[in-house]
């Protein structure tokens, strides 16, 4: 028997290291025909902001080689709607449900975190300081050490459960940003969010996305994500949650070896809606095959 349990600290204990990434798994309900949620470590629901947002105009996505760009722009109905309407529907899920919280100003993050703090069945928030789509939003916080210190420490003051901070890869030195998050009270960091990119339709001489630039995700970003997870895991003491292009159990194991304590699956859910469960099974099989008694033995076990 392999022990797959991961304790990320401050009450966030995962049955196994596999979670689903925000914005790619809806509220979990969209996938219940394909996935037994109780087989997952957790699900991270859609990016939510204090106030409702209509998001960006269509078209919001463009396929790219082994990946895709999106500029959804955080369309959501706001924290209060989540609490009143969605939370009652999903609080019974037999897995950890994390809320991905975003904001366009400091006060919104703080107020949103306060409101979510009282929800029994939400053991953690993933603070999205990195969404590249919001014109005057997340970006500013996630790309400088002062910005991230400010938002994380303010949220820390009002939020008493596990605080995961999701980092943007669109920075020069990600380890430095991660250290700032750690010093400001983050319980863990997750990375990477999408890489800023762009696609052009040459025939029509037009951008493919309504707001021209968007976030790149999917298999193509994996080498970048892996490198960043490795750099951050070496720098910080808090647990690191790795994501970016994970499509199968081998990819997931690679992130663990690079230093991640848990992983998230994003775009791959679009290609195989059942992939998250398969990755959890595959990680267990890997541990059995290699004689690991517990999955935590994989963390940072890179031989180099």
């Amino acid at each position, binding site marked *: 028997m392999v022990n797959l349990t991961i304790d990320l600290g401050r009450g966030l204990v995962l049955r196994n290291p596999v979670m689903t990434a925000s*914005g*790619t*798994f809806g509220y979990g309900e*969209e*996938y219940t025909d394909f996935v037994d949620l109780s087989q997952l470590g957790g699900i991270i629901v859609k990016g939510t902001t204090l106030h409702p947002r209509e*998001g960006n105009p269509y078209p*919001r*996505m463009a396929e790219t080689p082994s990946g895709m760009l999106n500029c959804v722009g955080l369309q959501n109905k706001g924290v209060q709607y989540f609490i009143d309407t969605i939370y009652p529907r999903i609080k019974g899920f037999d897995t950890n449900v994390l809320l991905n919280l975003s904001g366009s100003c400091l006060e919104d993050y703080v107020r949103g975190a306060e409101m979510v703090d009282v929800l029994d069945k939400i053991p953690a928030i993933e603070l999205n300081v990195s969404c590249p789509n919001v014109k005057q939003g997340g970006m500013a916080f996630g790309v400088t050490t002062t910005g991230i210190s400010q938002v994380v420490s303010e949220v820390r003051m009002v939020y008493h459960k596990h605080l995961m901070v999701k980092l943007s890869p669109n920075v020069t030195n990600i380890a430095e940003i991660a250290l700032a998050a750690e010093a400001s009270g983050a319980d863990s960091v997750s990375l990477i969010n999408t890489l800023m990119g762009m696609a052009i339709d040459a025939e029509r001489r037009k951008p493919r996305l309504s707001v021209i630039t968007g976030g790149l995700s999917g298999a193509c970003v994996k080498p970048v994500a892996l490198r960043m997870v490795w750099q951050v895991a070496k720098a910080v003491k808090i647990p690191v949650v790795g994501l970016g292009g994970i499509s199968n159990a081998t990819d997931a194991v690679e992130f663990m070896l690079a230093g991640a304590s848990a992983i998230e699956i994003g775009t791959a*859910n*679009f290609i195989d809606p059942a992939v998250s469960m398969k990755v959890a099974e595959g990680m267990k099989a890997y541990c059995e095959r290699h004689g690991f008694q517990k999955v935590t033995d994989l963390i940072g076990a890179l031989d180099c």
Partner: protein
Amino acid sequence: MKKITDFELIEKEDFGNAVMLRLRSPEPLPDIDPGQFAQVQVNDSPATYLRRPISIHDVDFDRREISLLIQKVGEGTRHLAALECGSTVNMVYPLGHGYSAPDAKERVLLVGGGVGIAPLYYLAKRMSQLGMKPALLLCGKTKADLPRLEEYQKVGDVFVTTEDGSCGEKGITTAHSLWKEQQVDRICVCGPKRMMHAVADIAKERGIECEVSLENLMACGLGACLCCVEDTVDGNVCVCKEGPVFNIRRLKW
């Protein structure tokens, strides 16, 4: 209930610009409504990372078969068209909301343009099974755009227009004489956006109920990613989940 299933390609008919794939499931099919679609995986095509949304063209529940009518427009669809019988085709289905259930008292006109005729076959077939005989107006640039006309004739009264006059009346969809001669209570449309707009305009002018099927770009097909939204009177809604079929009253057309 939505499923992920490995289908086996058991028959392929090539029409030049389009291809029909008949696919068999190893397990019984769930309920499938006309106008719903499948997210079809394309293997061994590096340029095709995401699944391709394709309407359900026909269903045979007894034989556990689904047919797709696919126009070859790019890498993904050309790859599907090149598959050989015996190949495995993975589909997530049935997705979205289809056309409203037909009411036996209504006179229904189905209007299809190009490969937009695909979902109308299954719709007409279901109506004919209920003892109805829908009118079908099928339109293309040329005759080659309208495969399987004989099959459509078995499930409805077929009218045809082609822009070059190679089949049926010559001209565009809205120029067909049927618009002057026939009284209809409801129109179900699928085709190029410009054509659907033109038909929707007629429907609005005459106060006829009208449903159209949208083809917004999709990623998940499950209502999870919010990539496929259409700006409606209710704000941005997912075409993959609340559509692809919408009553035009809900759209800002």
